[in-house]
């Protein structure tokens, strides 16, 4: 899994691509611990074509920290397979989910 981040206005855009499953989840976990993501964050999942419960768990962890710090978190570009995981677990209720990154950054 490839991870990159950039700034867009006062948002940080964290872009993930590839497989986010139990095998690649630790890689994202350590990346998040090493990097400072305070402030408003948008996670772009456009290039994520497979998400499992471990990947979901990490995203929910981010949501919890953002909520605790009263900071904004948005997800963007979820394809149907990724959306399905959020829906069947009801995790969608924890996230603001956008079609596109720039609409999220408005």
């Amino acid at each position, binding site marked *: 899994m490839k991870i990159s981040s950039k700034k867009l206005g006062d948002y940080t855009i964290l872009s993930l691509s590839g497989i986010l499953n139990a095998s690649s989840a630790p890689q994202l976990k350590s990346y998040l611990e090493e990097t400072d993501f305070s402030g408003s964050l948008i996670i772009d999942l456009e290039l994520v074509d497979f998400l499992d419960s471990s990947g979901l768990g990490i995203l929910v962890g981010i949501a919890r920290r953002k909520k605790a710090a009263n900071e904004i978190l948005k997800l963007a570009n979820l394809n149907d397979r990724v*959306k399905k995981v959020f829906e069947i677990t009801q995790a969608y209720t924890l996230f*603001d989910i956008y079609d596109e990154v720039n609409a999220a950054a408005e």
Partner: protein
Amino acid sequence: MKTLIIIRENAHSWLRDTFPGQHPLLVRICNKSFLEFLFDFSIIAGAREVRIVSDGDMAEIRDFCHDGGRWGLNISYATIQKSDTITQINNKNRRFYAAERIIVLDNLLFIEFNKNESYTEYLASSHVGMLLSNGQGSVYLDGADQQSILEQCGSSPHISIPELGSLPEYFRLSAEILRQGSRYILPGYSNEDGCYIGRNVVIHKGVEIKKPVIIGNNVQIMPGCVIGPEAVIGSTVIIDRESLVTGSIVMHNTFVGEQLEVKNKIASGNRLMDPATGASLQLVDAHLLSEITSEGTVYEGIVRRLVHVLAALLLFIAQLLPYLFLRPFVGEPVAGGTGHEHKTAQLFNRLSLDRFPQLFRVFSGSLRLIGSQPAVFRYAETEEWPENEMDARIVEQFCTLHSHPFGDIPLLLKALLNRKESKIAAS
């Protein structure tokens, strides 16, 4: 032109109470779900792309609609938060909006429209913003404000949101939709105005159909019934002999008994509701009103066969000796034997020994032990009252639809008992 349908999870709780276990938008009115009427409006307005967004669970909606191919629509889904404003919803669905004019149906169950009028210009040329609202649901236009080349078109087509927040209002709207059937796309074949009949509908002789009437699929209307005017009969429904259904709604999977009068009521499964008084009665008497459970699954077929073979085995053991003992005394089972043999033949039949040879066919699986024709024992024999073949068929229809594998055992005992009391001529 596209349509965005916003479903608020906590809305329409009155519908959840009245028709539990169903998503409010999938509840039917005039035999068609609310959502499908919204799809019809969208199609008539020229919007083939539809997105359904909800702040609640959409599994049921997704399973019902899939990608919308069934209606020639392209349906996508998205989730929103309970607190989202219209602008936030717009932002979250930006790719769907994509500089198009969007008809937003927010928290709506039904829109009154007329399929013979044209809505495309009217909706395209109206300005962005609220078009209609009744305080609960609303229709508004969003997305690109088309500097339309068309001026504001002449008269606006008929479009309104009915009051729909209680059972009486549901009941009144249902009757109104049926009365104005030509404005909507009502399901069923309609060879004449005000009459819509579904597939696989059997209307027996002596039945009177008074328009306007709509009947769903897989429906049996037994002889002597009067249906209508203003009757909505759902799918998989049986209306038994000489019953009257007028100004009423019989929801799907409902059995209405014999010589009854359903007038200005709603019958759903074994529940009878009076929209006028709000009264609701859960009937325990299956012969009056009951729910028709759907056909058994593969699993039930296998279990049923097992139950039948086991019961046949027990019967075989119980009847073996009496059969061997009495059989020689009973000539060919000729009806009306005289004197001594007659009495033995009668005893022979009353113990159902005449059916003994057929048990082997149950073991081989070629014949059911009990069921509708053909079977060793017919469901009709579990009741005393059937006089003719028609009565027998009704009992069997009712039993088949309501039967489950283990239910066959008490029915078998009843059949054996009836034959013992020889209430039924030794047929």
